[in-house]
């Protein structure tokens, strides 16, 4: 069977090889990941229909500094607030984890080996 012109263009004139199973699985996972990233805000926002939705607004009148920043972000852009919250949580978890690893290593405990008695 003759390959269509556009296929020849992308395969430099050679007939396209059937994709391996691993390749197909990887491509599907990448596609699903991008779909999830693209669609998740819309899906999550659709969690509650607009009618009757409880809208919460942070009271910024007595806030200062970082608290004020969080409250303003929350009130103005919910998606940005969410990304900031998740990113900060992940970063804090990672930094604190590394810090604690350093402390444990400095104490001299060997956590690389252990006997399993089960």
């Amino acid at each position, binding site marked *: 069977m003759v390959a269509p012109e556009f296929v020849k263009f992308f395969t430099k004139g050679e007939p396209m090889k059937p994709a391996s199973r691993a390749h197909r699985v990887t491509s599907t996972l990448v596609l699903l990941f991008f779909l999830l990233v693209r669609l998740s805000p819309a899906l999550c926002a659709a969690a509650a229909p607009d009618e009757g939705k409880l809208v919460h607004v942070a009271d910024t009148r007595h806030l200062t500094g970082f608290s004020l920043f969080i409250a303003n972000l929350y009130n103005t852009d*919910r998606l940005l607030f969410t990304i900031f919250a*998740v990113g*900060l*949580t*992940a970063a804090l978890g990672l930094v604190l984890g590394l810090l604690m690893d350093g402390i444990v290593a400095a104490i001299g405990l060997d956590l690389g080996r252990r006997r399993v008695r089960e």
Partner: protein
Amino acid sequence: MLDVFTITLPISGVPINVLLLVLLGVAVGVLGGFFGMGGAWMVTPALNIFGFPMPFAVGTDLCHMAGKSIISTRRHAKFGNVDAKLGLTMLAFDVVGIEIGARLVMFLERVGLAGPVIRWVYVVFLFLIGALVFYDYFKKRALDREGGTAQGGESAVRWHVTLHRINLPPIISFPVAQVRCSMWLPAMVGLLVGMLAGFLGIGGGLLMMPALVYLIGCPTYVAVGTDLFTVMLSGFYGAFTYGLKGRVELLAVIFMLLGAAPGAQIGTIATKYVRGYGIRLMFGLTVVCAMISVMLKQLGFTTPASWFVMGGVSAMTLIVVVGMVRGAARELRARRQAVV
């Protein structure tokens, strides 16, 4: 004197003592790392008892738990206890379940029933988990006394043997967990755990660890690591979806994480030194403490509920810390003697 540490949280407007949040973080970190779960099932009731509206307690808990799981999972990954293949299989269905649970919470909030409904579901859920753990513990002891078949740490409840007979393709091998079963078994476990996780604000560890041990047949030490791995990833999804719904109190998350970081390290390290079937009994007692505190809160006894949840959790934390310090001291002493 401690009023200096009382702040008003920026989003929910709840006044709370920062030290209480840090202490809760430490306790949950230690017990979560030790029992192999986020420990979030202690946080949601505690935050609610401290004055958080239930949807905020659920969202804040999920967010804090995601950050804390990074710390514990890194430690367990170093021990080689994580079956990533099993974890990812469950995760795919777990996130769907979380979204279903979160939508249910938002619906209950709109009709004004989130607090009582979630609290009663917590009581039933904690009762069932506690009952299963105690049943398993006492059955194992009875078998040991009679010289029965349960060997070493092998679970006395062996439902996984029956479930492994399900031959629905694809059949998958999970090498670290040494399990071979239908993919649909971990998938359905993931979906159910996710639904409860999204609804109760737990990472799923409270359900997932028993499910991994009793339904899938993992050794406990692999269940601990795999559970934390799955909880970490699903927790981030939970934090994301609750963040979009506006029910995450970020400042509380930060304070709890500051306490949970050293706590999770201590708890995870303690599993190296404190071992055996007694861990499951301690786990059961902690579950009972949490259940009683939720009941007290629902019945209107908020102050006794606060004391009960913090007292119970702190006592268990102390036991784990003492065990860890004694074990670590033994190891350091032995190493010093080996050098001499």
